[in-house]
């Protein structure tokens, strides 16, 4: 039983963490929290199932296409919903523009893909008797994706100049611009990366969560909880927060069961926000005047 809590908790938590990272990567580049994070997660599953099950592609090709689609959607998000409102005095417009875009995509999925959850294929053909199959791939795939993502981002940020440019823009976009860094292109690139991470979460988690349009709302909320817990912009915080959330949710499912698990998660979310709005590991608010 404990094993069940831990394995599923980590798997679901990894998906939440990846969505949290998706929020963060977009936030770092633009100071914008985008409602499209959950949408990307949902599309990772739906597009994967579409490419493999309906169009008969092989898993590798489908995976690459899904990643490409995520990148394109990220870029569209930036161009359509973020850039036009970045300069606006009204700080909250991005909430509305990204929400609107996410709802539009969700509705298109609901109409053309359907509102029923649909199956997602087994991705890695493994002999059921081999050692690898001791742990189900629907458990280790998202965990692996999370590890790959966090290591990849870490390498990007620490080992490449473009990665440092991302960090520079996140810390002080004005100074970065003064240095001649191409802020707009870097922001687009960030959104493309965020798009790929978002669909990666959905793609690897879909054997568990299925290809379901309703995952958008679930992932939007549960993917944001790690950001709130871990502090905005902090990817490590998102991973810790995501895994903690996954484990908590599974434990609550197991111990109290039913809907009370989600009520409990929500209560924790509210309490953390009220007591520590900057996140459990975040910094204090900036000057206002």
């Amino acid at each position, binding site marked *: *039983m404990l094993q*069940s*809590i831990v394995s*599923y908790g980590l*798997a*679901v938590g990894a998906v939440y963490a990846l969505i949290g990272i998706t929020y963060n990567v977009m936030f770092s580049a633009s100071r914008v929290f985008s409602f499209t994070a959950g949408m990307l997660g949902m599309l990772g599953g739906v597009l994967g199932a579409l490419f493999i099950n309906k169009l008969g592609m092989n898993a590798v090709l489908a995976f690459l296409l899904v990643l490409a689609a995520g990148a394109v959607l990220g870029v569209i998000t930036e161009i359509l919903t973020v850039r036009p409102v970045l300069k606006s005095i009204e700080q909250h417009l991005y909430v509305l523009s990204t929400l609107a875009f996410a709802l539009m995509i969700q509705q298109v999925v*609901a*109409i053309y893909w359907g*509102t*029923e*959850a*649909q*199956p997602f294929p*087994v991705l890695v053909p493994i002999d059921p008797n081999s050692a690898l199959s001791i742990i189900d791939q629907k458990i280790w795939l998202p965990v692996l994706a999370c590890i790959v993502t966090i290591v990849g981002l870490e390498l990007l940020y620490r080992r490449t100049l473009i990665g440092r440019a991302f960090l520079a823009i996140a810390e002080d976009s004005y100074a970065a611009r003064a240095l001649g860094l191409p802020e707009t292109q870097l922001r687009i690139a960030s959104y493309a990366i965020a798009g790929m991470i978002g669909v990666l979460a959905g793609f690897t988690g879909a054997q*568990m*969560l*299925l290809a*379901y349009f*309703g995952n958008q709302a*679930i992932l939007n909320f549960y993917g944001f909880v790690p950001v709130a817990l871990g502090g905005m912009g902090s990817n490590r915080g998102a991973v810790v927060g995501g895994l903690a959330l996954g484990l908590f949710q*599974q434990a609550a*499912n*197991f111990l109290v*069961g*039913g*809907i009370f*698990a*989600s009520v409990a998660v929500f209560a924790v979310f509210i309490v953390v926000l009220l007591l520590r709005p900057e996140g459990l590991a975040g910094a204090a608010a900036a000057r206002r005047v």
Partner: protein
Amino acid sequence: MPVSRRQVLAGSAVSAAALASGFPAPAIAQNEPIKIGYLPALTGPSSSTGVGINRGTQLAVELVNKEGGIKGRKIELISRDTQSDPTKAVNAVAELTQRAKASMIWGPLNSGEALAATPLIARDKVPMLHPCWVDSLIDVKKYPMSFRIAPTNTQVGKGANHYVVNVLKLKKVAVISDTTGYGTDSVNTYVPMLKAMGAEVVYTNHIDAANPDLKPELLRMQSAGAQAIMPWSVNAGFLSRICNTRGAMNWDVPIVGQTTLGSGQTKALLEKPEYWNKVYSNNFRNCCYIGGKLPPRAAEFVERLKKDKVEFGDTLLWWVALGWDGAMMMAETFKNAGTKNDDIVAYMNKVKGWPGIYGTVTWTPEQHNGFPDQEVVMCEVNSLKDGAFNIAPGYSS
């Protein structure tokens, strides 16, 4: 243009009727279509049933109209997609009853919408026929013009309980559901029924259908000593996860429950085909293979569907049959009783043993639930062929 005496008489009869009702109706009134207000849920969550039923209904109306309609009047199906949204259903009811002056309402096909629509349709005094299972939808005192052409949830549960307790002879049962209205209500209704039949309900719970891991639930059932799992849900993902988890645990326990257990959606979500073994879902005797053959009425219907090239391999025979039966029942009512609401109700109150493809319908002035208990059976879910299933083992044929 010479006018025959007969035509004059007919014309004067019409004007007399028009005067009597205070409405100057045009002389062609008799050729106007008969309007059926139709409330399917064709989009939105839980619309797959609606899509299946819709095929049967459309087919039946087409056929009736092709054969000349009802005494020369075509049937016009005024369809309003409720999108599985009760507020849309409430708006649509006002439109269909008041605006379109529908002679009868067919639907809503989903309980959520039917719960909101039924009191309003009753208030507007329009006869109503629907296939929803929620018991409280039929109440001859509150809704004297409302008729059901399908079993009630109680009947459905009774059928499943009967199979577990009396046919499989299992005494320790786990009853679970998702958190939807249908699920929670079913559990709360069936558990006392099971206990009354002498079974021991060792485990009950309402489980969030989005929960990816049901192993804890099943482990708890197992340790409680359950000999059968009865899940009540229309959520294919949830049901398939129960089957998958049971299979992965190598727990050889029958799963007995609602029709969605046997849906293609559920099947598609199984990890291994054999996880569908020993899963029995509700079905209806008239639409099951018994000894490898469909009962005669259903067999004939399937022939007709094949001839008309109606796709039903992707849906279920009983859905299409139900849609057909509903439309045919209304056509027959119009044929025999005309389109006045009191006449319609009077006629329907006396329907007895009407041989539908889906069920044999009997109504009385006191009982508007028309489906017979004994036609609710269980079937083997892994036996799907041409939209129908084998009846579950153990029933006498």
